[in-house]
């Protein structure tokens, strides 16, 4: 491709495999930057070349901007793909790429910075006339927090201004819990982001997490690829995603999607990104939450229902090409669901289970897609996150997608380590899931209790 002939992938696991595949389709050479623990991994074997960038510890390998840049320059790469996590949302990487004549496959440093400060992003959405959850400015101390909380109304959420991904986030039901939790939240924010600035948001109990996929080129064309519903969460971590959302009407869809496009356009966003919203099911009102300036784990859900290859689009946009399609040409066809298969024991409070996979046989079939870096004999290292695979099922409608997912999970064989497959099998039989009547607290408030009860009784819902 003009402008990009060799891509260095500064990531690991299934997303590295995903990016290598996209590059191969486009006739682009690949270099994988791998830590010592990932030297023999599947993406390392698939890439045209792999280079060892440092020891297992991410802080000494995947998180080192200078090492990534040196590896790219030293192997003759002309572009860097960050994947998700690690350096994907650090403005330092796109900056260093620009300084060294490398193309960063992602948004500009300015885009990343603008959306990295959650409080500023909120303010910007508000100025654009997009609803934001009632909330406060920064609160300096407990007194200020107490005052702001009364104004916003309990229950409230304490959030880190530099936050994201649920870190430093605390729900407070009433004033008596505020004192202790306030100190905890600022300490947690300081530890996670090096920034203890806190603000308060009204907490919406009956909420769904709805997000909109955006792609934008360097010529100001911004297109949305509809929404994903990511309400199945445990400890603010997404477990299952689907598109379209079972609760979003076509009118609401139009409103949410055009809000997302407006935000992206306002900051002159480039490349793929996701605008997240909270949908209050009681008030039938949506609110802007934050924007993620990277490709997301759950992007295949959107790919399955739109037929658009988001990673290929990312590379083409970064190479300076205009989007090859118009908004009217993007169609949402059918229904797709993704389950994140983790190396965790769902029977034992989701305890991480790294180790040797003895047998790995993934399902195939109509509408089934598996994104993974695992195989029989692969050793799951204990140094990184526990995602083993993303199982995606597509059907003509939600019902068919659910049936295909059930069938695929039943045929997914993993031995040697524990996975979350049994948990998803249970979830797919639950009447709340099937009817779509749930919210972001459903997993913790309902599903996990029922799951524990079923295991005790040896066959609830069987």
């Amino acid at each position: 491709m003009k402008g990009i002939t060799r891509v260095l992938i500064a990531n690991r696991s299934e997303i590295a495999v995903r990016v290598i595949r996209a590059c191969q389709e486009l006739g682009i050479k690949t270099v994988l930057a791998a830590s010592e623990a990932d030297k023999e991994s599947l993406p390392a074997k698939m890439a045209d070349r792999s280079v060892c960038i440092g020891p297992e510890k991410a802080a000494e390998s995947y998180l080192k901007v200078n090492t990534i840049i040196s590896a790219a320059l030293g192997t003759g790469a002309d572009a860097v793909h960050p994947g998700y996590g690690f350096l994907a949302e650090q403005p330092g990487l796109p900056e260093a790429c620009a300084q060294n004549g490398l193309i960063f496959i992602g948004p500009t440093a300015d885009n990343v910075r603008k959306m990295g400060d959650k409080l500023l992003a909120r303010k910007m959405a508000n100025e654009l006339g997009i609803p934001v959850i009632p909330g406060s400015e920064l609160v300096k101390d407990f007194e200020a927090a107490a005052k702001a909380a009364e104004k916003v109304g309990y229950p409230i959420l304490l959030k880190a201004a530099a936050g994201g991904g649920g870190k430093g986030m605390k729900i407070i039901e009433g004033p008596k819990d505020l004192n202790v939790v306030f100190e905890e939240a600022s300490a947690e924010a300081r530890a996670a982001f090096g920034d203890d600035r806190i603000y308060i948001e009204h907490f919406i109990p009956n909420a769904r997490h709805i997000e909109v996929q955006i792609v934008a080129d360097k010529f100001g064309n911004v297109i949305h690829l509809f929404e994903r519903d990511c309400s199945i969460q445990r400890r603010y971590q997404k477990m299952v995603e689907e598109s379209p959302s079972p609760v979003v009407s076509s009118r609401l869809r139009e409103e949410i999607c055009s809000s997302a496009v407006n935000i992206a356009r306002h900051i002159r966003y480039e490349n793929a990104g996701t605008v997240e919203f909270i949908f209050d099911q009681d008030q039938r009102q949506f609110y802007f939450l934050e924007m993620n300036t990277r490709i997301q784990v759950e992007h295949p859900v959107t790919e399955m229902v739109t037929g658009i290859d988001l990673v290929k689009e990312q590379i083409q946009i970064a190479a300076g090409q205009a989007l090859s399609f118009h908004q009217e040409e993007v169609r949402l066809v059918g229904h797709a669901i993704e389950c994140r298969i983790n190396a965790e024991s769902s029977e034992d409070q989701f305890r991480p289970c790294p180790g040797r996979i003895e047998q790995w046989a993934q399902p195939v079939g109509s509408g089934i897609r598996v994104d993974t870096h695992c195989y029989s004999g692969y050793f799951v290292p204990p140094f990184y996150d526990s995602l083993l695979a993303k199982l995606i099922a597509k059907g003509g409608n939600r019902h068919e997608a659910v049936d295909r997912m059930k069938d695929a999970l039943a045929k997914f064989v993993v031995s040697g380590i524990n996975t979350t497959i049994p948990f998803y099998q249970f979830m797919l039989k639950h009447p709340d899931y099937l009817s779509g009547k749930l919210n972001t607290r459903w997993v913790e408030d309902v599903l996990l209790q029922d799951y524990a009860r079923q295991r005790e009784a040896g066959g609830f819902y069987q």
Partner: protein
Amino acid sequence: MALISHEDIIQILKMVAESDIKELHVETGDLKLIIKKYGQEESVQQLESSPKRLTKEKDFEKPSVPLSSQTFVQKPQPVPIDEEDGLIPIKAPMLGTFYRAPKPDAPPFVEVGQLVTKEDAVCIIEVMKLFNMVRAGVQGRIAKICAENAQLVEYNQVLFLVENIEEGKNPQ
């Protein structure tokens, strides 16, 4: 204050190496120089300099081959370590560009056959204008140089093989 030249830095390095100083920080203009002496575990010295300054002073450790024009080498074969011959590897402590000499026209730090002590500098690894001096960490005779000058080396890649000459083994 006048600009610090490359020769000055080498001079400072030598002085530090011969002294008991464990760590030295020098800041002048936009040049920042940090020298740390590590034990044998981490035998690396680091020279830090802001990229701004380096683009101004072009003669400073400019690699003889521009990095971007380097040919793409297919998966390099790992160097087998012959344990029976008692050869000890000196491995790259980081990914970067391997330089055998302190500057392009200077003689290399070491040649095959040369005796080295643990403290002897054997090469420089550059990570984005950060020059890391690598010390032998072992005592012996350089038996083989396994990496090519001005090429990318990976973390833990074998750079040199050293024939171990221990005092106990060679009483004469």
